[in-house]
């Protein structure tokens, strides 16, 4: 029958109209600056740099390998390598970025930089309030503004961060175990060498030279 659907629809909208006055659960929106909808765990907006510990200058995971800079589709990342190396979380000496800029007015939130980073150093942020009066300087984020602690990362993407931390811890444990094993081997080699010195027949272990430069790679 013609018009039936219109009447049904009008009844539905009337229900919405009156219901929205006494039933707060119906409301689909929140009053933004005062109330916010908490960010969903998989929300992503622009990338940020993760650092461990307290000091961003010391704990930055980024090693300035520049893979993300090359892979970035809109080319919004700009990196300059520092000449000074610093030890990473395992203790290896690594390069570090002197300049790391992201132009968020160009960034398209594709997450490719996160996918390609081998060091878990760049992650997606959920922050979206970048409003500024200065559209050139204000939207070009530098290393200081990009660096955020690992605790922040754990807060915004709990599951993902736990996974990453676990992996890093495992790697670190492996590296430590290896270092310990190396140290032991070295100690053993030293002991053997000492013993060899003591004993008249010096037997040169074939493995000793290979183990000796263990810390470096």
């Amino acid at each position, binding site marked *: 029958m013609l018009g039936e659907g*219109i009447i049904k629809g*009008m009844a539905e*909208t009337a229900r919405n*109209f009156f219901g929205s*006055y006494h039933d707060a659960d119906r409301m689909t*929106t929140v*009053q933004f600056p005062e109330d916010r909808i908490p960010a969903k765990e998989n929300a992503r907006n622009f990338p940020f740099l993760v650092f461990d510990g307290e000091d961003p200058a010391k704990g930055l995971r980024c090693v300035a390998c520049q893979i993300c800079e090359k892979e970035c589709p809109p080319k919004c990342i700009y990196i300059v390598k520092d000449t000074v190396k610093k030890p990473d979380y395992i203790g290896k000496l690594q390069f570090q970025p002197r300049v790391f800029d992201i132009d968020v007015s160009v960034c398209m939130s594709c997450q490719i930089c996160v996918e390609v980073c081998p060091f878990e150093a760049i992650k997606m942020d959920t922050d979206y309030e970048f409003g500024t009066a200065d559209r050139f300087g204000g939207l070009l984020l530098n290393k200081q503004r990009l660096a955020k602690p690992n605790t922040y990362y754990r807060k915004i993407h709990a599951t993902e961060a736990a996974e990453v931390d676990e992996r890093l811890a495992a790697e670190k444990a492996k590296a430590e175990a290896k270092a310990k094993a190396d140290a032991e081997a070295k100690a053993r080699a030293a002991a053997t060498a000492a013993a060899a010195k003591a004993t008249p027949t010096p037997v040169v272990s074939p493995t000793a030279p290979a183990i000796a430069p263990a810390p470096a790679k």
Partner: protein
Amino acid sequence: MIADVLNGILLMLWRVVSDQPAPLAALLPALPEALRPVVSAVLCVSPIIGVFATLFALTTLMERKGLGRIQNRLGPNRVGPFGILQPAADGLKMLTKEDIIPRSADKLVHFLAPVALAVPTLLAYAVLPYGRNLVPLDLDAGLLFFFAVGASTELAIFMAGWSSHNKYSLLGAMRAIAQMISYEIPLILSAVTVVMIAGSLSPAHIVARQDGFIWGWVPHWYVLTPWGFVGFLIFTTASLAESNRSPFDLPEAESELIAGHLTEYSGFKYALFFLAEYLGMFAISGLGVTLFLGGWQAPLPGLDWVPSYLWFFSKLILMVFIFIWIRGTVPRLRVDQLLNLAWKFLLPLALINLFTAAIWHFTAVWQFPGALLLRWLLSAVMIGGAYVVLGRALSPRKKVSLRTYRYAT
């Protein structure tokens, strides 16, 4: 002299407020002869512009808040308490924007189009009776005047669409004209039923004919007769289309035509179009109130002491609210559906309604018991039968079935 004029003004205001006849007669004799026509014109025109501009501001706010509530949102609530200053903010924004004229536009016609739209829209207000003795121009052929100025807005829309030199504008204007011409016919036919029964083309006289109550409490409005009810529905549908309101807002369908004939307009000219659109909606709602809802007549016998213009405006706002409600409910039509509805459904229904009104009129002499019931039944069978048959013819023949996909499961 000055005391006379002041006294006259006060007396005039008192006469307006208290529904007494000839308010202007209280003031005019105190003025010099040469000034009288000017003063009486200004006194007629300025309240109309003031009241309806205020109503326009209120309606934009009411519309946005109402639509928000219909969609379970709050609507605008930032500017002023509960957002009541939102229209002022909108107006300021509109007026401070840059006025852009496209380089290839026909400059003169582009400039004249909003004026040519706003002037007839405002003229239409001249013949509506706002209260018991408040009709600016009681023309003998007032209804014809209303439809004549209503018809001349089509050319203004064409001017806007053609002069912009933009395909979206031209398409939107063409759609608007096709739509307005198609829906003018059911609109006028549904008004003609009222003219036929009331025996006059003067809106004031039509309102006067709807005076009194049946059985002491049912108002003698035309909407409470079978033909009047159907006529009112046809009139409302057609007036939705005439004022380009949703669901008949195809001329400015954003998803296909950007904004139709408004695409190339900005700033003050756009504001004028916007204003004219809403003023047109008020005018046509006011005509609907006048023709079918008893104009300024009170709905119940004991309420005569309320000033009559308050009844008129509350009915007008009720109509506008129904327009907003429909806008919040019904999705936009396709062009073929739009024209089919006008020509294959509303037009035959309006003609049958005209016959029904004639039968209702001539059976009024029946005096036997149950005559009223029989008349109602007769009318209901005539109109209801036509409604069912026409509605079935209009509905799509093909049964809609669940869509199946070949390669996706």
